[in-house]
């Protein structure tokens, strides 16, 4: 209700020509933070103004006619019905205007396409429903999914007002960090279905396609946090896989790289020690919420017909190896979590499903048992609940 009131207040302000609401109520494309995004913005404005101009001219003539050439004013209908000269004129003029548009558009298109001579490369993989980032030059690798606060608030009937959640639906647990003033080449692919990686401030989006690699590039001048979303319908949680890019000055970026490497070390040593059952269940709960709950639901009841229930599931309460194999390699729509989770997370979430969600098998899976099985998986996985 309050928002409605604000809204009408704002509309009346705008009607008064004050235009103060511009910042909060974005009406136009953003300029973005790269040269290309600025070029695209300029192109957008150019074409918009041409359209506005043509619109005013054509509608002006039409409304003049509607006002003056009406029967109720006693206007007598003329009987002309063709003129080759006029037809030629209004074919040629638009053609010339179109050529005028095509020239700058082609220039920008060529610029967008030029991924050569990049300083570094980042591989982006779309998953249902998270992003995987791999720094090809630095051996850094992690997943990025919707942050916990947004995820809680976005559940049907959560009772949480989205306005109270900072950056609702535009925040992630682990953002992509890039250096400023570097040409960064992105390589895009997908693990399951089509996705599209879009950060409006960078000026473009690119589809991620399973089995194929797409390329794009960016060069960010200013440090800052830039937010975007998946733009290609990718299933039920398509609206809930945001992108956050943090651009840092080179020195800060280097520091971040060091932190990532240290965290990876810590993670792999944590996998070596013996974990208690309670520790694993506590950790597994978080891993479950971030990775499993979107399909199998927070309480493990699943979605009948699409996603099986875990509570009482014959796989979950049955043989441990069987469950490990399924989670490791995936099946049908179930992704292969062996490629996504660290040994600790993997062991924790399996232990959690067997001893939580209404199940009570009693056994424990140790990270050290999982470690050798994850031979092909990344070792530098950070803890999910950080950030």
């Amino acid at each position: 209700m309050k928002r409605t009131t604000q809204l009408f207040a704002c509309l009346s302000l705008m009607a008064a020509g004050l235009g103060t609401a511009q910042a909060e109520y974005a009406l136009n494309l953003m300029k973005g933070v790269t040269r290309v995004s600025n070029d695209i913005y300029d192109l957008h404005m150019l074409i918009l103004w041409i359209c506005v101009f043509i619109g005013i001219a054509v509608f002006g003539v039409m409304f003049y006619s509607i006002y003056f050439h009406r029967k109720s004013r006693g206007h007598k209908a003329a009987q002309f019905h063709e003129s080759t000269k006029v037809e030629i004129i209004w074919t040629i003029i638009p053609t010339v205007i179109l050529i005028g548009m095509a020239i700058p558009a082609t220039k920008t298109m060529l610029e967008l396409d030029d991924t050569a001579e990049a300083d570094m490369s980042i591989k982006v993989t779309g998953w249902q429903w998270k992003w995987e980032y791999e720094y090809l030059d630095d051996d850094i690798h992690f997943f990025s999914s919707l942050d916990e606060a947004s995820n809680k608030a976005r559940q049907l009937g959560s009772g949480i007002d989205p306005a109270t959640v900072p950056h609702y639906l535009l925040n992630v647990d682990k953002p992509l960090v890039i250096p400023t003033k570097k040409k960064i080449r992105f390589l895009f692919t997908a693990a399951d279905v089509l996705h599209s990686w879009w950060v409006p401030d960078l000026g473009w989006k690119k589809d991620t396609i399973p089995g194929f690699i797409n390329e794009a590039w960016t060069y960010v001048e200013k440090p800052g946090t830039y937010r975007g979303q998946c733009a290609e319908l990718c299933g039920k949680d398509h609206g809930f896989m945001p992108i956050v890019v943090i651009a840092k000055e080179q020195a800060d970026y280097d520091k971040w790289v060091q932190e990532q490497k240290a965290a990876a070390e810590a993670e792999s040593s944590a996998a070596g020690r013996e974990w208690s059952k309670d520790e694993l269940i506590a950790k597994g709960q978080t891993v479950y919420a971030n990775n499993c709950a979107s399909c199998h639901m927070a309480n493990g009841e699943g979605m009948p017909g699409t996603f099986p229930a875990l509570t009482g599931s014959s796989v979950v309460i049955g043989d441990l190896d069987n469950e490990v194999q399924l989670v490791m390699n995936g099946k049908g729509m179930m992704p292969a979590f062996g490629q996504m989770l660290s040994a600790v997370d993997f062991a924790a979430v399996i232990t959690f499903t067997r001893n939580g969600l209404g199940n009570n098998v009693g056994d424990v899976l140790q990270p050290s048992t999982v470690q050798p099985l994850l031979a092909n998986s990344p070792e530098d996985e950070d803890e999910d609940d950080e950030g």
Partner: protein
Amino acid sequence: MSAVIAGHDEHHGHGPEKGILRWIVTTNHKDIGTLYLVTALAMFFVGGAMALVIRAELFEPGLQFVEPQFFNSMVTMHALVMVFGAVMPAFVGLANWMIPVMIGAPDMALPRMNNMSFWMLVAGLLLISSTLFMEGGAPAAGWTFYPPLVLQTGNALPFAVFAVHLLGISSIMGAINIIATIFNMRAPAMTLMKMPLFVWTWMITAFLLIAIMPVFAGAVTMLLTDRFFDTSFFDAAGGGDPVLYQHIFWFFGHPEVYVMILPTFGVASTIIPVFARKPLFGYTSMVFATATIAFLSFIVWSHHMFTVGMPISGELYFMYATMLIAIPTGVKVFNWTATMWKGAMTFETPMLFAIAFVVLFTMGGFTGLMMAIAPTDFQYHDTYFIVAHFHYTLVPASIFILMAATYFWLPKWTGHMYDEKLGKLHFWLSAVSVNILFFPQHFLGLAGMPRRIPDYAVQFADWNMISSIGAFIFGFSQLLFLYIVIKTIRGGTGERVTSEVWEDARKHGLEWTLPSPLPYHTFSTPPTKIPTEHLGGH
């Protein structure tokens, strides 16, 4: 409805069958036209209800009413129902009613097939609707059915594919019938370049349909075999390519959206001259512009796919080709404006809808041009900007023209006049609310809101709320349309309409030379005198 008509028309005493059987077994083009139109109107409300589910969920940020999966089903089904259930059948209904009458033919060329194509449409629509109640829910991958996502559909997938086959066969048969009718059944005096533009635009549309529906049927069949018979047309792991599907789909899909707009051009070109009391400006250029647009529609499909990672040469070619469409489309808009210029205009409901069509369709054209520019489309693509664009070309364009056509010809069909006051009320409610509904979506898209999401970041809240308010006003205003139509069929204002209905309409088309309501059988002998106002009266 009385079949006893006095006057010059010949009768063989064949009235319609009695009771329900009349509608089931009918081969009469007017009855079949009515069936199509009634079906389309019913599906318009079904699809509209789905749209209101979407807009209700998007009224505020956060999920209030439906789960995301069901939301995606609504998005998908809304599009399928509106495209295949409402807009296309409505134009086929108009074609059935008007084409034989406009060209002086006694009926469609293939009347039994006409009946069959209607009932196949019904079967297809029932089948696609039934998926809503299946395990795993209705298709939820968007009306474009992109793999691999669509292959995750539950039990509904084969039913949806078979429904597409049925709808496709129905459309192809309808198109064949229209072409056969136009080429074989014209009154001898009705040469091609004398045909009303509605007939011309429908003929071109029919050729588009025959060309594209088999392509779509092929694409969805490949989905079926990928899912059930281990082929891998669209699976890279087996040597296929998901993007291949998009190329095939849009080779169908782009002409398909013109299927929904070309007949619209024909109706606008029919209505505007009557109320401007002036011949249509540039009849010949209108015919050629329509044909040009139809041709271009086949060579621009990848502008729906600028972000899939095409080579630069492909991006540039599809950008240039798409920009070309602005030229013939511009010619049409200029011609309609020139038709109004120095006319003696009156503004009955059909004219109001037709003028709103020209203005709002042009707005959709402008955003279309903006999206043709590939680099800017890298921002616009898959946002609410495109949602606003295609709804402008479909709702205040195609749907408005269907409204205009109904008000224009309903008195001719029923012999009763609709309530002009209510008609105008319906127009103003629709015209204002449709802009409240769709105009803010331009802002949302530019500000960065992707399409097909059930929930959104809070900075998009205000325009979404306005858009939803517009949607509810627009949706409920259409109940007024239903009321007006029913009231008119049941006697209208009580005023007896003349054969002309509109002032001097007789000069504009053969339908106005016949009595109102149109007799059950018309032009058993072909007319000899062709109205030629659209050619300048010579």
